């Protein structure tokens, strides 16, 4: 398929020129027609600044925001994957009760706008549930070392509960989509595979572990990647409940300095790089799995 030598034809040249002209036109409009004083100079400082007193480079709010986005995405993905696998198995259970629970969860979440869900979860559910467990008081009473460790993996004590509710709300709605992917993946495996497992005398768990899941995983990897990338992008939604992630920090800088377009462009580029690298990683994983198919 890839044996054809790349040959540039006239049409390709025309399309490339047209695209280049469009790009130039947009940049031209932005720089000359828009009444806006560009000020890219202040941006690098918001990533890192040099502290004169200590002689160190210190991470500023955009870097901190980026790290929060990454932490948020990783935890939300993990929790969503756990929720997704459990409810996905419920959805294919033999018992009506489990199927109904799984179905209710998926339909409830899937048919609600994520933004509304985030608001409801943050203002009603998390403000009722988290104090019940005394999370905030517990974090504040931890030793300095524990707090440091928690700050490394989650968030600073002052932002801890907000971080947890942000993570949970993203995980909750991403879990619903992953549920459907898990269900579809398992159901796509031919009946014969189950029967073969049965014939070999494998228990349900062994069938899942050794026969069904390895095949299903390969099939669901592309849609699953979509959901993981969506998790990163959706993490921007929680900026509305003031979780101090990348988008939120960006809006704070905009409100303080009134440097808007530069900040938006920078943030967009960061999200693009993040999501694109994730896509590339999964692509390699897919190729790896394909190569080992025979084994």
């Amino acid at each position, binding site marked *: 398929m890839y044996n054809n030598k790349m040959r540039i034809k006239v049409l390709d040249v025309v399309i490339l020129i047209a695209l280049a002209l469009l790009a130039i036109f947009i940049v031209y409009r932005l720089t000359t027609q*828009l*009444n*806006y*004083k560009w*000020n890219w100079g*202040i941006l690098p*400082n*918001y990533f890192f*600044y040099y*502290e004169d007193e200590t002689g160190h480079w*210190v991470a*500023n*709010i955009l870097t*901190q925001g980026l790290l929060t986005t990454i932490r948020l995405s990783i935890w939300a993905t993990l929790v969503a994957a756990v929720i997704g696998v459990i409810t996905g198995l419920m959805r294919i259970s033999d018992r*009506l009760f489990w199927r*109904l*629970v799984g*179905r*209710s969860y998926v339909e*409830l979440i899937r048919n609600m706008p994520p933004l509304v869900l985030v*608001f409801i979860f943050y*203002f*009603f*559910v998390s*403000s*009722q549930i988290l*104090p019940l467990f005394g999370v905030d008081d517990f974090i*504040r009473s931890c030793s300095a070392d524990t707090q440091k460790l928690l700050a490394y993996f989650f968030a600073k004590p*002052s932002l801890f509960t*907000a971080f947890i509710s942000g993570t949970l709300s993203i995980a909750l709605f991403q879990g619903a989509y992953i549920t459907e992917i898990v269900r579809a993946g398992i159901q796509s495996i031919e009946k014969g595979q189950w029967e073969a497992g049965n014939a070999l005398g494998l228990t349900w768990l062994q069938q899942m572990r050794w026969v069904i899941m390895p095949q299903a995983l390969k099939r669901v990897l592309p849609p699953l990647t979509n959901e993981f990338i969506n998790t990163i992008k959706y993490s921007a939604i929680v*900026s*509305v*409940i*003031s979780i*101090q992630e990348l988008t*939120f920090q960006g*809006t*704070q*800088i*905009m*409100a*303080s*300095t*009134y440097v*808007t*377009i530069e900040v938006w462009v920078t943030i967009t580029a960061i999200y693009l790089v993040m999501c694109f690298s994730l896509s590339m990683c999964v692509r390699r994983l897919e190729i790896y799995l394909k190569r080992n198919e025979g084994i």
Partner: protein
Amino acid sequence: MKKVFLFSIILASIIALTIPAMGTETKVAEGSTIAKALKRGTLIVGMDIFVPWAMKDKKGNLVGFEIDVAKKLAKDMGIEVEFVPTKWDGIIPALLTKKFDVIIGSMSITEKRKTKVDFSDPYEYAGMSIVAHKKKAPGLSSLKEFNQPDFEIAVKMGTTAETAAKKMIPKAKLRRFQDEAQAYQELRNGNVHAVVGSMPKPAYEAAEYEETLYLPLEGTFTKEPIGFAVRKKDPTTVTYFNEWIAKNWENGFLQERFDYWFRTLEWESMVK
């Protein structure tokens, strides 16, 4: 049929379980906010970015008039202060659901807000001003002239700028933005005729883009008292804050800080 029935029972029970959770906020808080803050050793303050009330400086720290006020308040109480930057349109719900102790965030005392929260005495006064586009709305010098149906005015959503514009120039069409920066960008692009905002930002904006923007009015057209907002049914906390504010009007701290942040531009290099 049976499946549908069971399904709806599960849905109904989920809804029934979440509804009582929403109602519990109205209960009277045990112990005042002040007592809790003292016990915790930290006063947690909710605010949003408004130049020059509260801003992020070059090092990512918060600076501004309000920040100085909250820091002094906490210092006088002998405890630490912690700021929770919060989106303005969600700041009152966040206070009510106890995400922080008090809003010290250039919040104007209005009757509508008083139905949800209690206010301290004013610790400052803010005023609204208007900045207009030279080409779209040339040569105007009174608010009345903006009161036309084909005029578009940009404001930040949920602020008293919105209320003031609705009241003073009711005929003009309002366009509401999440952030003030977007409202001003819309004005610079010439998509709206004017922006109503709290002083001194409109004046700074007119100075920075003097080729395209101008100030139709001298000074401000409203005078709005600004107070600390706390949850309802907490008289101890309100009294405590009122005493602190009265004391700091007397010793000149509030006036001195106001003059620094609003009458000078010495702080500008900290931010830009």
